[in-house]
Structure formats: C-alpha cells, structure tokens
C-alpha cells in the first residue's frame, strides 16, 4: 500500500477532500510496541498501541522523557522496536526505501554532528537531491521569510535560525508523513506564528499526515485534529481534540491535570 502523494488543489474548499477513503490503511500504526534502550531498566515505550489515520494533524504531548522522541524515531525508522511492530501505511518502515523516502523527520540535530557544519544552502541541495517532492522555490521563499542566511554554516546561526532551517527542511520536503519533534524550539513568538501559518497553508494545499510534538501546548493546540498524550512510555490519552474540549477543559489544562505527579504542585 503506497502513501498518497500530496498534490496541489484548485478547489476553493479543499478541506473536504482531506479525509482519506474508508479503506485506506492508517498512516501510522503501532501495535503493542516496546522500546528498551540498552542498560536501562525502564523501557522508553511500553506496550504502546496507536493508530493514526492519513492526513491527520496529530499533536504528540508528553513530559520530558515521556517517550515522544523514541516514538518518532521508530516511525522514521531510525530505530527498531524491541517488541511489537510499527506500520506505516501498512508496511514496516525499517530499512524500507519506499517508507523512508516518504517520511521526513525533523528534530534538533546534535551540535557535534555533521549537519552543523553544513550551510543551509548545502542542506537544501542535499534535500533537492534526495527528497522526491522537495520544492526548492518554496524553501527559498521560507528562508527569506525567516531571515536565514544561506551561506553561513548552521553552527554559526542563532538558535532561532537553526530552528527555521530545520522547519523549512520539514515543510518543503512535502513528505506524506512529516514528523516535527519540537522543531521550532529556539524560535521567537513571531517566527513561531509564521511557522504555524506556513504549515497550515501548505497542509491545506498539500495534505499529508503530520505528527507534531510540542511543549507549548496552549499555543499549538489549535493546530491539531487529534492529540496523543504519552506518559512514562505509555499512552495516556488519544482522542479528537474537539471531543476533549467538549468536556470543558483546554488541552493544556487537561494535560497538566493528567500528568502532574503526586508531590508536584502547579501554581
């Protein structure tokens, strides 16, 4: 089963066409997945089962070390589960060329890694070579919008500009599954708004499945159709956002009330 290709619309109301056909396999499926890191007693993910439909914009919420990045790494085929199975559009993504080229994983790369020594221009060139749906014109426009200097190596950019480069790599790739792991960390409030704006507009034109982890819940919760909350490697909650809101609580307050541990206080 192949993922649908994001394609541009002429329809003034494209949102109606965003829902995938009934028979389409879920974009993301985790079946009883456990992930254990070596020399660690507690598993990073413990018996997680999740199903996310195509073209959903799902928010991934969780405290630090709740298992968010581990989950995303599994989906991007950067890691393999210790137990259970991961399925993207019905396939196992690990070492699957089709799956990996259709997934864009945006995360904060290490400072000592090679990505820091590349210039944004080079990173865009790499994307143009290797990402099948890369839109260079879009990337260039975004780089201007975020004031990213293209010829300085990324290690010498400000935190916000580095975040912008990451986000552009994620957005302009137009991958059918795009995963943002706190990609905008470091951006100021204005750029965050610009990013959300660009994301929504592009998502509207080229629907795709997006998994978006964030700590800025109240700022970002409007983006999501559904929310997935993790706590200590387990699924706490996974539901449609408006259904959750119908209970009278904002997502942020709901999240805090569910994850606050005994002894901690929230002033």
């Amino acid at each position: 089963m192949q993922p649908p290709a994001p394609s541009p619309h002429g329809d003034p109301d494209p949102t109606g066409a965003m829902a995938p056909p009934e028979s389409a396999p879920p974009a993301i499926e985790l079946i009883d997945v456990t992930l254990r890191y070596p020399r660690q007693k507690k598993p990073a993910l413990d018996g997680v089962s999740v199903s996310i439909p195509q073209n959903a914009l799902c928010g991934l919420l969780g405290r630090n070390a709740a298992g968010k990045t581990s989950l995303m790494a599994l989906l991007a085929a950067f890691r393999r589960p210790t137990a259970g199975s991961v399925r993207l559009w019905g396939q196992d993504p690990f070492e699957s060329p089709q799956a990996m080229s259709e997934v864009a994983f945006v995360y904060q790369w290490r400072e000592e890694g090679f990505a820091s020594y590349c210039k944004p221009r080079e990173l865009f060139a790499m994307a143009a070579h290797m990402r099948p749906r890369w839109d260079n014109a879009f990337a260039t426009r975004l780089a201007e919008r975020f004031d990213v200097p293209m010829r300085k190596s990324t290690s010498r950019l400000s935190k916000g500009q580095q975040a912008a480069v990451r986000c552009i790599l994620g957005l302009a790739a137009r991958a059918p599954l795009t995963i943002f792991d706190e990609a905008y960390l470091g951006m100021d409030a204005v750029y965050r708004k610009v990013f959300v704006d660009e994301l929504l507009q592009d998502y509207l034109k080229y629907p795709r499945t997006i998994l978006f982890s964030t700590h800025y819940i109240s700022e970002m919760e409007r983006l999501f159709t559904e929310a997935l909350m993790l706590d200590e490697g387990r699924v706490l909650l996974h539901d449609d956002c408006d259904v959750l809101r119908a209970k009278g609580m904002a997502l942020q307050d709901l999240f805090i009330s569910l994850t606050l541990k005994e002894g901690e206080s929230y002033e």
Partner: protein
Amino acid sequence: MSDETSRASQPSNRASQSSGRALAGAVRYLLKNMGTSTLWYLVIFTGVLVALQPLVTLLSKPDAESTQIALAIVAVNSNNIFLLVMGIVYPLMLELYMMFGVTRRQFARALLVAGAALSVALAVVSGVVAWATASLDALALAGVLASNLLCFLLGWLAVSGFQLRRVLAAAGGILAAIVMASLASMPFASKMPSEILQHADWLPNWLRFVQEPAASLVCMLVMAALLALVLPLLMRQAKLKC
C-alpha cells in the same frame, strides 16, 4: 501532480521511483562532496610536491631517477592515506543522510560506489604521475587501484565499530583494519623502500609493497570484496543519536 485524482490512489511504481531517487541522489551528492574534497587535496598536494621537489633533490641522492621514483611512491601512498581518511570520515555522515530519507543500506551502497569512483580517479592520477617517471605496468596500476579501494574500505572498517557504539566493536574495528593492512603488504614486508629505490630493474614495479604484483593484487581484491559485503551489514546495526 496537478489534480485530485493523483491524491486518491497512488500508482504503485511512484514510491519505488522516489526511493530510487533517494539512492541515486545520495550517490550523486556524495560524489560531488567527495569530489570537492579530492580536488582540494590534489591542488594542495601538487602544490606541496612542487614546492618540496627542489628541496628533496638537494637533500637526497642527486639521482634524478630515484627522486622521481620516490615522488611516485609518495604520490601513491599519499593517495592511499587520503582515501583512508575519506573512508574514516564519510561513513560517519550516516545520520545526516538518513535525515533526508536514505536508508542505511542505500547509504552503504552509495559509499561503495563513491569510494570505488574515487579510487579509480586517484589511480588515474597516480598513473599519470607514474607515466611521467617510469614505464607503465598494467598490473601495477591495478595494484594501485586495489590498494586505493582497500584503504577506503579499511578506514570505513575502523569507524564502523564506533558506529555500533560498543567499545569492543570499536577496538575490534581498528584492530581488524590494522591486521588487514598488514596482510596486504605482508608478502613484501621484508622489502624496504630503500631497497626498491636501489634496484633499478624493479622500475616498473614502483609500488612500495609490490614484489609479486599478482599475488598482492589478488590478496587486496579478496579483502576488498570481503569488506564490501560486510560493511553494509555492519552499517545496518549502526546506532543513531537522534
């Protein structure tokens, strides 16, 4: 992609096209990248050689021929070391390439292709240098090519242990690389460079460690083939720090 129909059902060959593109793209980008590094290296190296040549002539035996041979040997060894360094550095870029949707296997393949291309290119360079100084021997050139490729793969072997993130594997990787390098020159370890310089009738065989070129060639090719099979498998186990 212009209308909604292409969105609903994906033609099954589209994804393989796109994944093929990732591999081809990786190869092309790697070649470009390595090519740039190589050009820099060649420019600097040639510059250094040209600058040092009068000095060398002054200090060593005033025998123009042996100086030329020494230079040829230096050229070949230097190329080998360069390729060794490339083999050490480039495999470490795995995570960077995976960020762009390239699988481990695709990246390993791309590295093999790029490494082979680079080996050929530098063998040609060595051949040109040799042509200027001594008679060309097809076998010797093949030996140069094989040693280039082997050096690249040995560098890769040395770091593959580090990629597995196990101290034992890292030590094992380096050890294995040293062992294999020695094996490559073992049949001829007794021959010191000075001896090669002294024996003019070995002019065609101006490689330092090649006395019986055929045996050495086979030895190197076997090891290279072995590594070309094993290294991608090791890369599959590489741990990423995302």
